[in-house]
């Protein structure tokens, strides 16, 4: 379809001499576009889509067929079944099934999205609109933390949760095996630097006049935060929540270290199955799709906001 559109454009384009009066948009249309570019775009689009389609198709084919024939022979080897999904939801390890780990993923992801965003919004407001000595320095430090690999923090943090000690000094009560708490706190900590940085950029962009006017009217910081900053930055907060949600849902490393045993999320179980039953493609394809279904649904439903969050994160970073 797009090839056709291009050809039309190319033939409809006027001679070089008459280009001067053309609207800007149609000039842009012809830059760098020709048949080869269109072909390359189509190849890229196919390369990026076909593997996922293959996975989806295979997940619905009978186990025997998945094992012996390619999914592209679907029409010669007809057959659809949902057995793979039933089987994979009951598969798992001694402590947990896939279905259980799916629930775990939800239980991990929702609090781990809400908590860091609230804390980050509070801190971002202080960095943007409150004056205190060393503000810029502390803010740069927070920014720098963003790029410290979380690998640096994993093991000491695990020890902190398990023993409650920092440098051998007890500071908190240990809660090593208490459900999801470890993962929530770990995700919260790892999300904070980026969240503070991004939300600060948004909150700092609110025009000074608005805040000043509120102050002159006698509004306190609490009121300014609630009545002005929160409503104005709500879209940014929403965009970043989607980001954080997907990031936590898709995480494996933090889960491997902090969510063991019965509280493991679906990514961890899936990785486990890949290791132990790597040739059972009927299970793997269905399992991968179960794990993908929530992020894909979020992606397709909220795609516009997701892009907005991405742009916010990059255009200013």
């Amino acid at each position, binding site marked *: 379809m797009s090839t056709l559109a291009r050809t039309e454009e190319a033939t409809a384009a006027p001679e070089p001499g008459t280009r001067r009066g053309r609207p800007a948009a149609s000039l842009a249309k012809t830059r760098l576009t020709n048949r080869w570019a269109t072909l390359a775009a189509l190849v890229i689009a196919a390369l990026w889509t076909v593997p996922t389609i293959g996975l989806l198709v295979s997940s619905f084919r009978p186990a025997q067929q998945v094992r012996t024939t390619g999914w592209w022979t679907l029409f010669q080897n007809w057959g659809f079944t949902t057995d793979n999904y039933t089987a994979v939801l009951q598969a798992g390890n001694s402590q947990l099934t896939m279905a259980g780990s799916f629930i775990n993923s939800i239980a991990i992801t929702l609090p781990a999205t809400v908590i860091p965003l609230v804390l980050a919004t509070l801190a971002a407001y202080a960095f943007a609109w409150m004056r205190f000595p060393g503000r810029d320095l502390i803010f740069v430090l927070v920014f720098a933390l963003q790029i410290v690999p979380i690998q640096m923090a994993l093991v000491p943090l695990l020890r902190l949760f398990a023993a409650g000690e920092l440098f051998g000094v007890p500071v908190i009560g240990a809660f090593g095996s208490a459900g999801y708490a470890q993962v929530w706190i770990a995700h919260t900590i790892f999300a904070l630097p980026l969240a503070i940085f991004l939300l600060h950029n948004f909150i700092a962009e609110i025009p000074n006049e608005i805040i000043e006017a509120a102050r002159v009217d006698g509004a306190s910081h609490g009121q300014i935060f609630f009545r002005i900053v929160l409503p104005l930055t709500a879209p940014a907060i929403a965009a970043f929540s989607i980001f954080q949600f997907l990031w936590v849902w898709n995480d494996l490393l933090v889960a491997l270290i902090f969510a063991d045993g019965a509280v493991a999320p679906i990514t961890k179980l899936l*990785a486990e199955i890949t290791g132990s039953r790597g040739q059972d493609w009927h299970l793997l394809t269905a399992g991968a799709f179960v794990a993908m279904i929530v992020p894909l649904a979020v992606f397709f439903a909220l795609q516009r906001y997701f892009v907005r969050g991405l742009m916010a994160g990059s255009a200013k970073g």
Partner: protein
Amino acid sequence: MTTFLQWLSTLPTLAQIPIIIGVFGAVVLLLLFLIELAPRRGRKYTIIRAVACVLFPLLMVAILDSYTWAIVAAGFLGLLLFWLDYRSRHGAGYIFALVGFLSPALLLLAAGLVIPTIQTTVQSFMNSRGTEFVGLENFIWIFTQPAGIRTVLNTVLWVLIAPAVSTIAGMAYAVFIDKSRGEKFFKILVFMPMAISFVGASIIWRFVYTARPADSDQIGLLNQVIVWAGGEPVQFLQESPWNTVALIAVLIWVQTGFAMVILSAAIKGVPIEQLEAAELDGASAWQRFANVTLPGIRSSLVVVLTTISIASLKVFDIVRTMTAGANDTSVIANEMYTQFRNFEAGRSAAFALILFLMVMPIVIYNARQIKMQRELR
């Protein structure tokens, strides 16, 4: 808090979500309420503030189940806070509000990132149990055995290939589909892998790479293509060094959409007048791209390259799920986890520190860029 968390973990999974979010929300609302009260004048509010200043640190210590001397310290800190707050230049209540806004995030960051980073650095110079100082032994171990060198080299390979290829592919795609009919749809196709986890992506690509003996039907798409072209099936994930390239392809597949979306927006931001002027001067499409568009999207290119470089340095899930580091495919992040699992805390920390040092130049470069942009503003 320990008691609360332990009680919470006994509840049904889905019931835990509203409870934890509700409790957290209540605490934040109380905090905001106190911040709101803080700057008010009058003896009553001053007393409330004084009480809150002492009670909050106390409460925190109590929540954290800590010890008697810590409670005394908290009381002292609280009074100090109140005194400072009372004499604050910005009016009484200012420091109270400031601490209220900032302290939760900063305390978590200090306890969860800053101190652990220092601890890991120290740990990398200790033996496996962290009991004895061994100097550079862990690093010498990494750089004297072939597998260790291989791991570091692989990471370098990742950071050289993945950012370059995904940025170029993303940029090419963004340019090719720019202003075309169905642009949005085409964007979604390439962008979609961003939503798929690395674990999911790894399974997708393991399936594409699967090889079966030459005499039977192939079920992996890539090998089928090779067979159609008259070749022999290849074990993509077993033959070094190409297996690392096969893994890198997965990261490229995921990250290209990100590069494409960012660069596409940047390309649309290039002033149309400049492009028109260049065209009037007789510049070809390629010249216009190289001399007008490319300089115009430079800062976005830096952002995209930086982000993907950091992602490639830290790559873990893909290697873990696809090969677990077998057949010479290991990378630093994977090796760090493997050593941790083998109770070699010192070596694990040494790998983490190497990773940190490799990320450092990128951080410094970006910090400078931000500083430059701020000065421009």
